[in-house]
């Protein structure tokens, strides 16, 4: 095939019809507080790792809800488990533990 120098980029549109609901339900069972996130961004703002690599618990939760698992894992791979995010979360979510649970359920 002739290479024209183009590539097809995957649609960035979120399609909620094709979200893997079972894995998220399993996560919510293990970590019910994940449902309480109100997207305030305190976790991301205080994250130590985010200075070096894009890291955000808020966006990771949102990505899982939107079915973007790769992106969620990418947003947590720089995490150093310092636990600062847990200290600041106003909804009292144990985000540090949540990160471990996300790895357990979605990590390969």
């Amino acid at each position, binding site marked *: 095939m002739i290479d024209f120098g183009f590539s097809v980029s995957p649609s960035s549109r*979120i399609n909620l019809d094709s979200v893997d609901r079972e894995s998220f339900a399993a996560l919510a069972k293990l970590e*019910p*507080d994940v*449902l309480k996130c109100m*997207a305030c961004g305190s976790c991301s703002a205080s994250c130590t790792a985010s200075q070096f690599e894009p890291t955000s618990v808020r*966006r990771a939760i*949102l*990505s899982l809800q*939107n079915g973007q698992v790769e992106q969620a894992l990418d947003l947590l791979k720089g995490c150093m488990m310092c636990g600062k995010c847990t200290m600041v979360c106003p909804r009292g979510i144990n985000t540090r533990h949540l990160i471990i649970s996300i790895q357990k359920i979605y990590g390969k």
Partner: protein
Amino acid sequence: MKNNILVIGGGPAGLEASANLKRLGYNVILIEKDKQLGGHLAKWDRLFPDGVSARQTLNALLEEVSGVNCFTETQLQSINVLDKSYNAILSNGITVLADAVLLASGFDLFKAEKKEEYGYGIYEGVITNADLEEAFREKKLPSKQPQAIGFVHCVGSRDEKAGNPACSKVCCATAVKQACEVKEVYPDADVYCFYMDLRMFGRHYEDLYLKAQKEFGIRFIRGRVSEVAETADGRLQVKAEDTLSSKPLRVSLDMLVLMAGMRPSESGKTVGRQLNLTTEEDGFFSSADNLLEIQRSKLPGFFYAGACTGAKTLPDTLHEARSAAIEIDRYIKEKFSEK
């Protein structure tokens, strides 16, 4: 001699004010254009924030007005300002010489079909908050289990194009309440709320939001629904932006509930025209002062209570009704005490 007070509108505001005026010793004449008293409260099923029965709440208000002269299916034919009082001719032929008038004409629900892109009146699965209340009240929810249900906040509110830049105040709490209620009926359905800001300002409202997330797993998506279309298999396809991730989003739903907002009552406007009452930019009546004299109009002896001066919750409405009764009492005492 007892002074006559005319109350226009038999919704929660008119009922509560009438009961209080009667207690203060006035002769109250309450007129309501519809067949029944109760206004919008008669149309709701359960009330936020605690889920109490709207019917029981209304019955408690109705009990209080026993002894008040209530005329249903009655409107104002004409009204004249006299030296000290008002001469009102009612559509049932009765003439009332009133020393003070209270307007409690409430609101009309925004006509959701005006937001054509949401498909109300076009697609069967698209209903309004009021339709859903009726379905709960009459126990007429679709028996076929929907897979996915969406709630659209701010329909006809915070929308200059729809002619209403104001927030309707009650619809965030209503959406969250109704989302929990449908999830109770259809536990397997995915339920989404499409919001721009969640205005959960009242006591216990934030608890309701937390409960919706934690107990019912309602998914809150920050973004306004831009359009609704039908899929090949007859479901509803909804497009919005998930503004928290800056990505366009789409989802197929079986039911879409539009949170239609509150607009000034058309029949209230008719009264307003008869007396040249002024309104603010939002179309609701203007009080003499928005901080100190909310219940007073600019006309001496003419008062307001409830949603005729802007969107209000039921407790807000009832507070206003009680303060209107106190204000009217003060006005009458100042104006009619013999000196």
